[in-house]
């Protein structure tokens, strides 16, 4: 009897573990968030173009990750993208005229938000909005700009 019980228990555990693994694989969203909501404050920024910025992308300053993107949404009234992200509470002395830009890590890497500190005496806090933003660089625009510039150069000669 004891034997049967331990067999049943082991089987149950095994099947449960297997199903949990399957669930994990199908959802894939269990990111290890090293910033929990209690230890961070939330800041928003508006961008003309966010490129392919995704949720949970890193927010970095001087190359060090200090926060994470929570959501990327389109604002139907302002006709631009609103990016909400959180910053670790330890970094509470970031000037409120800080500049946020969407950058790409490496040539083909993922996109992240880079912060450039400003010079204000007031600091970013829960709910503040970053006013100075720079959109993601769209390669097509860059190329067409370059081509048109060349065109006008050759005409002026």
């Amino acid at each position, binding site marked *: 009897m004891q034997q049967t019980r331990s067999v049943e228990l*082991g*089987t149950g555990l095994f*099947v449960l573990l297997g199903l949990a693994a399957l669930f994990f694989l199908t959802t894939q*969203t269990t990111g*290890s968030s090293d910033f929990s909501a209690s230890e961070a404050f939330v800041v928003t920024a508006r961008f003309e173009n966010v490129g392919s910025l995704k949720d949970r992308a890193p927010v970095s300053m001087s190359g060090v990750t200090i926060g994470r993107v929570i959501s990327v949404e389109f604002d139907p009234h302002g006709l631009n993208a609103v990016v909400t992200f959180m910053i670790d509470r330890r970094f509470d002395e970031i000037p409120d005229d800080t500049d946020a830009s969407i950058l790409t890590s490496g040539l083909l890497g993922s996109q992240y938000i880079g912060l450039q500190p400003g010079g204000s005496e007031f600091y970013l806090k829960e709910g503040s909005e970053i006013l100075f933003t720079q959109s993601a660089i769209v390669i097509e625009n860059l190329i067409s700009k370059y081509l048109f510039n060349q065109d006008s150069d050759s005409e002026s000669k």
Partner: protein
Amino acid sequence: MLREIWYSFIDFLRTFGALQLFFLRLLAATPSIFVHRFGLVVTQVYNAGALSLVIIMVCGFFVGGVLGLQGYSSLSKFNAEDAIGTFAAFSLLKELGPVITALLFAGRAGTALASEIGLMKATDQLSAMEMMAINPLQRVLVPRFLGGVISMPLLAAIFSVTGLLGAHLVGVNLLGVDAGAFWQQMAASLEPSDVYEGVIKSFVFGVVASLLAVWEGYNAIPTAEGVSRATTRTVVITAIAVLILDFMITAIAL
């Protein structure tokens, strides 16, 4: 010479056909066993699955760790080490998880099945059952077959998840890849169909590995040497069948 080749070809065809018929007989007996003798199946899930957990998890963890190291060293040449999560997930979910699990399963559970059934045959236990009007196919073979079929997809999933944890440990904790980028890029580039492909593969491999193990044990020559030969053949044939099928399923899925 030519005649010998011809005969061995005919022999192969006969064995192959007999295997198909054996498979159909197992399938035909499956529903009644599932309904009436489910306890037998549970015991075999324990033997084939729960007892294989340790080897599966340890191997999965280290395979994932190696993927982390290798992925880092090759991806960092393109400055794309953030893609290490994608790299590990694709390799584990679609190929390494199902295939290595099937090979380990053949070594851990398949050999146990083949030698157990072979020994039952060698010691006339199967004949004794027949004399008591118990069908050994239903009482002995079907539960073992089903236990393997149920266990394999679960084991493969566990293998993949522990592999991802290993890749995460090496990539993020040791080599300093960003944890967010690791999971974010993985989630962005993996599609549900990739996961399903791995699950379908592991299910097919489970059927093949269990079928071959049960078949080899059932058809073992009832001597000590015959049982040992059947055990060896189980591993060899399962490995060959799994790798050929893996190629075929991948070709179809693409």
